[in-house]
Every structure is written in structure tokens, then in C-alpha cells.
């Protein structure tokens, strides 16, 4: 009896297995199904170490970027080896070594925490190029085969701030704000940040300056969640900020926690709106979401893959913005203020042709004074008074992402309060 059941099961599996052999591969997750059949122009292999998978917005953007680069450079799926959900520990080093052993000539990792392990691998395999996206140690490490790359996302954050500023202006003019939304004559803005370091500081400052570009009388509170992805904590932070009267909730964290919370409050009649990050938030906040600041990673991956195929060296520090299409804001929501679209276009073209500097030294003060000098810590010792540390302010503005690709603007300017900073 037992045996008969077993053999029946076996037969069933064999049949299914036979169907499986037909080679009906699953649909590619990113809609590039036709690329499976394409002939490739190269035998070279490229490795991708990803902190998440396609279900997580930040990593999804990187997958999309590399897939686009793959198609545009005439490669096919055999050229790229993917490692999903790689934690930020020695597993990253192991993944990198495994990719080298599979013949990869270049390996990218997409999370900051992968960096030290990528650096270790780079030191061991000098013939393979390693890129730690969003990292900041490439130049310091002195390794010729180790690079960093980051977009000038502060530009798109500034533009998303412009969108928010337009909304604030509209709300004030329509008399929709009450005393709880004001701090004196200033409108309260909220911001959900991940960690208190330069990347986040640079981001919220650009966002704040973008709002002030349209409506100068604002003040901003920043709450940290101490995590890049924590739906609950981000929602809680947004709720706390809204309870405090904040009208706009910006974010530098990867989940949909904040926009969802803002939409809830918006549904209850509160005048609150959300500006997201990485992905279009309209699906979770159809009315509250104004727009999101995003990176267009394909611009970088395209250039890098081209360099790899030509046998060249990937630049040690890469950072580009609107001028090269490497950053953008997502589709404007239905509730943005009138004229936002035109204003956005105007600001983007001003950024492109260099008329508008996001960190214009004349647009912010520290302790009531304008800065005419600021040294950026270049050797990673948290002091900015060493001979290696460089001056970042000249020609009247702070040169963000020019001395190295990762953001270095860590100045706490007037008008912004960090609430849970350590």
C-alpha cells in the first residue's frame, strides 16, 4: 500500500518534471523578457550584490538601472549574475569572492554597509573592479580597482522641496492652516530621516532650501528612525510630526510607512501632504503624495557597463545629477498646487544650466551667520581640520558631491531642528 502511494507520487512528479523541462522560464520580473533570447556582444560577466530584492524600492531601482544598462549595451541575462538579499556582513565578502570565482570582471554592491567588505575583496582581487554604490572610502583606500558612485540626489530633493513649497504657499493663501501648523509666522515642515549623517543631512537641507526657495517662512523638524527600512517606525515618526502640526512630511527612508500615515490623516481632513523617496508613493497615498525624489541609476550603470566592456577603469568617484538625467522626481500627484509643473521645469532648467546652486551660501545661515568657508572631512576621522580635509565653499556655494561622490554636506543650518539626534 505504502509503496503504491509512493510510486504514484513519483509518477506525478516525473510528469511535472517533464513539463518543467520544456524550458518555460518564468517571466522576468522587470518586464525584460525579450532580453533572454538576445545574443550578447560580450562574454564578460558583471556581478551585482544587492541588499534586498525586487520587492524593496531601493534595490528595485538598482535592478531596473542595471537591466536598462544591460539592454542598452547589447548584453543579455547571461552577462549579469545577481546576488539578492545579501546582508551587510561577511556574507557580502563571500558573495563578492563567489562572483569573482564565477568570472566576474566587475562587481557592484548597492548598500552602504557592504562597503568595508567590498574594500576587503578589492584588496584581494586587484584584477577585478569593485564598486560600492553610495560609499565614501574609494579615494581614501588608495585601491585603483575600488570605486564609489552616487547621484546628485540633493538636486532632485531640492526640486521636490519646490513642489512642497508651492503647496505650502497655496495652503497659506487659501487660509487652510491653523495656529497649530505655525511656529510664530513660520509654517511647520516635518522630515523622517534614517540616520543622522551627511547623506541624510544633505538630503533634508536640500529639501528645506527647495521649500524656502518658494516660501521662505518655514521651519522644519527632523525625526530619525535609525533604520533604512522600518514601516512602523516611519509611520510613527510621521504621526508624531503631524501631531506637532507639520504640514508637509518629507522622508529619507525607504518604506511607504510615512506616506501611508499622511494619507490617513489627510483622509480625516487634516491639511497634510507627503513627499517620498525612491518610488512613486501615489499607490499608497493617492491624494497626500505630492511627488518623490528619485535616483535614475541606469545613467550610472550605463556608463559603468560601457567602460567595463571597453576594458577601461570605472571612475573612482562618480556623481551626476539633472544635467545628465541621473536624478528626477516622480509624477506629480493630483493635489499639487496650481502652476507646480511649470515651476518645476523652470527650477530644473536653472539647475541644469548652473544658474541655480542648491547649496547657495547666501540661502542659509548657521548661528545667524552666512558661511564663507567649510572644510569637509576627507580622511574619515570625523575631524575637519586635517591637512587632507578640503574647502567645500567657493564661488559662493557649497560644492556638494564634487570632492567625493558621497554627500558631504553635514552642516546643521538655522531653521531645522533634529529631534531624536544622538
Amino acid at each position, binding site marked *: 500500500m505504502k509503496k503504491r502511494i509512493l510510486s504514484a507520487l513519483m509518477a506525478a512528479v516525473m510528469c511535472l*518534471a517533464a513539463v518543467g523541462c520544456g524550458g518555460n522560464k518564468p517571466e522576468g520580473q522587470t518586464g525584460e523578457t525579450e532580453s533572454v533570447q538576445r545574443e550578447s556582444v560580450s562574454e564578460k560577466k558583471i556581478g551585482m550584490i544587492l541588499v534586498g530584492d525586487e520587492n524593496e524600492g531601493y534595490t528595485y531601482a538598482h535592478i531596473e538601472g542595471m537591466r536598462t544598462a544591460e539592454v542598452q549595451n547589447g548584453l543579455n541575462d547571461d552577462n549579469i549574475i545577481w546576488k539578492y*538579499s545579501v546582508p551587510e556582513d*561577511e556574507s557580502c565578502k563571500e558573495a563578492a569572492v563567489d562572483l569573482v570565482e564565477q568570472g566576474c570582471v566587475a562587481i557592484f554592491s548597492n548598500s*552602504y554597509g557592504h562597503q568595508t567588505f567590498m574594500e576587503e575583496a578589492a584588496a584581494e582581487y586587484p584584477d577585478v573592479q569593485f564598486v560600492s554604490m553610495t560609499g565614501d572610502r574609494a579615494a581614501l583606500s588608495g585601491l585603483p580597482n575600488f570605486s564609489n558612485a552616487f547621484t546628485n540626489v540633493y538636486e532632485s530633493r531640492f526640486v521636490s522641496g519646490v513642489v512642497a513649497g508651492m503647496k505650502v504657499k497655496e495652503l497659506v493663501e487659501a487660509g487652510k492652516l491653523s495656529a497649530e501648523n505655525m511656529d510664530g509666522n513660520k509654517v511647520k515642515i516635518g522630515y523622517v530621516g534614517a540616520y543622522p549623517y551627511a547623506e541624510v543631512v544633505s538630503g533634508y537641507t536640500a529639501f528645506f532650501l527647495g521649500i524656502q526657495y518658494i516660501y521662505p517662512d518655514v521651519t522644519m523638524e527632523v525625526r530619525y528612525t535609525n533604520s533604512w527600512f522600518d514601516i512602523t517606525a516611519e509611520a510613527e515618526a510621521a504621526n508624531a510630526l503631524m501631531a506637532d502640526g507639520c504640514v508637509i512630511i518629507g522622508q529619507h527612508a525607504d518604506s511607504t510607512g510615512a506616506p501611508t500615515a499622511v494619507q490617513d490623516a489627510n483622509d480625516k481632513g487634516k491639511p497634510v501632504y507627503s513627499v517620498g523617496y525612491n518610488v512613486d508613493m501615489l499607490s499608497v497615498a493617492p491624494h497626500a503624495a505630492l511627488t518623490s525624489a528619485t535616483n535614475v541609476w541606469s545613467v550610472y550603470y550605463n556608463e559603468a557597463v560601457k567602460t567595463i566592456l571597453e576594458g577601461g577603469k570605472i571612475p573612482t568617484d562618480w556623481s551626476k545629477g539633472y544635467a545628465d538625467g541621473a536624478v528626477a522626481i516622480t509624477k506629480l500627484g493630483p493635489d499639487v498646487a496650481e502652476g507646480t509643473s511649470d515651476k518645476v521645469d523652470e527650477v530644473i532648467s536653472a539647475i541644469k544650466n548652473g544658474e541655480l546652486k542648491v547649496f547657495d551660501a547666501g540661502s542659509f545661515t548657521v548661528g545667524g551667520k552666512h558661511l564663507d568657508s567649510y572644510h569637509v572631512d576627507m580622511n574619515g576621522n570625523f575631524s575637519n581640520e586635517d591637512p587632507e580635509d578640503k574647502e567645500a565653499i567657493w564661488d559662493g556655494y557649497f560644492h556638494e558631491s564634487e570632492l567625493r561622490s558621497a554627500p558631504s554636506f553635514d552642516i546643521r543650518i538655522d531653521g531645522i531642528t533634529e529631534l531624536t539626534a544622538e
Partner: protein
Amino acid sequence: MNEPLLRIVKNEAMSFKKKVLIRAVAVILALLVCGIVITLITGYNPVTVYVTMTQGAFGTKTRAWSTVKEMLMLSCIAIGLAPAFKMKFWNIGAEGQILVGGIVSAGCMIYLAKIGNAGLFILMFLLSALAGAVWAFLPALFKAKFNTNETLFTLMMNYVAIQLTSYFVAKWENPIGSNTVGVINQSGHEGWFPKICGSQYFISLIMVLVLAVFMHIYLKYTKHGYEIAVVGESENTARYAGISVTKVVIRTVLLSGAICGMAGFMAVAGASHTISTSTAGGRGFTAIIVAWLAKFDSATMILISLLLAFLESGSSEIASKCHLNDFASKIVIGIILFFILGSEFFINYKLIVGKKGEKK
């Protein structure tokens, strides 16, 4: 006469051969069911998937060592948990004991890099064991003195350890604000296990083998081991036999915590060279399954750890090669574990269908 259709009868004596046979059937059935699930969901040939898993876990030297590393971590913790669980002291706190051991090791690497590797290793080894022991001692003391519930106490100690780790990560973070400690002593490799036979995990391997042999002898052939067994079966019997339950509980839990602390040392010095709240990574809980399944037998614990490590590394390779989501491979792991755990039922009990059952 009312006869139940199905009766479950405790199966006292089953031959070793039959036990092995039942387990083998369970594994085969698990693989078959996984095959059906994989085919239905994805359209992939299950054989391809299993081959990919094997390649992922053992395909190259690097991968094999990586799988072995995972196996060693799990075995080490399971060996640590075994004496406590055998005594029916539910030590759910391995996670925390690993973390405090890890913190102490990382601290030694950061502050004492100058004293040289030999001294550093001895210090890290001893201090991490001490830290783990202290972490386990508190719940043991309260259990022995006030009969508090050790399950809750050890579990809560995990959260304290996680917070403590966050504190030290913030203290040692590099660069500031990044919330990671980064690789410690990246240039000088002070406090890193040296490479032997081409792998830095070789020392961990020896460590775990020694621990396994020690634990086997300790539980099976020593007076302490016997006392643990008696206290586990019945505290009253132990008291009647003149065993000091308090002493045995505290002594055993100290040992359990110390070994878990050493696992933290192994994770930091032998593998990651950094510390974070995910250093233990849930292994403290997974190891409980390992210890139970193996019925606290050292060799079996190593085998089961190997199976789990194989499934883990294999599944990430499926994700990479077949573009299957990570979760799809976790389903496979779930099915296999379900069958293996289920097979224990058929080893301990037998089913009697309908009238064939003999009357009592």
C-alpha cells in the same frame, strides 16, 4: 462496540534501522513535495533546482567553506544549548549570550589590538565565555532561588543584549552616523582567525569539533551529565537522590551561556570581524530546533546543522540563478523541515487503523 477509526499508540521500542528508514522516507517525500511545489509555482524542473542548490552550497571551495561556517555557528550554539535543554531549562537566550560574547570580542579587538594575537585570542576566548556565562547566570540564579520562569527571563535578556549591542555599535561606529562598526582592524588583522588550510574557518572547525566531543563525553559519561539528566527528568527525584538542584542548575546554565558566548567570539573573530545587532541573526533560535531534533547528541547536531546550512546557502543560489525570489526558496526549507519534524511523530507513535487495532 464503538471503535475509533484511527488510534494513536505510543511506540516504545523501534529498531534503529526502522528509525533511519522513516527519516529517509521523510526526506524523500519532502523533496518530492518541494519538487511539485517548485514546478507548479515556477515551471522550473525540480531536478535543476536541487542541482543548483547543491552547487550553491558546495560548488566551489569558497562556497563549501561558507556553508561549513554556517554549520559551525549553528552547531556551536546547539552544543551550548544542549545541556540546558536536557535539564529542561528553557534557555531561549542564546541570541543574547552570543551578542554579549560578540561585543566583548569586538571590544578586545578595538582596544587591545597592540598586545599581539596570541594574548588577544586567549583574552577574547575567556572574556566572551565569561560574558555569555554572566548573561545566562542571572536567569539561572533567579530560577534556582525564586523559581522564576526562565523562558521569559532568558528571552528578555536577549532584548537587553540587543540594546547593549546598539549602544556599542553607536559608540564604535565607523564612519560616525553610519550605524555600522565596519570591519575592525582591516589593515593589521589583529584578532582575526588566521587562515589555515586556505580558510579562516579552519580554527572554528577545530573549536567546534573539540566542543562537540567534550559535550558528548560530558553529557554521557560524567557525573555532571548524569545529574543533568536526573534534574531534567524530575527535580524531586534529584533531591531524593541527594543532588543539589540549585547547584546543578546554576553550573549547567553557566556552561551553556559560556559556550554561546564563545559562539559570539567565533562569529566576530572568526568570520565577520565586526559587530552588529544581526551578529546572532536568529541562529540562537534556530539552534534550539537543532538541539531538539538531535536529542542533544553532538554528532547528530552537527549533521542537522549541516542540513540547515546547506538549505540556506542552496536557497540563495536558487534566488541568484533561477531569479526565484528568496521567499520561494524559504518555502522549500519550510517544507523539508516540516517533513523531518513530522517524521519524529511516526518514530514515537504508531497509527492503528480501524478494527485491526487490538483491544486493551
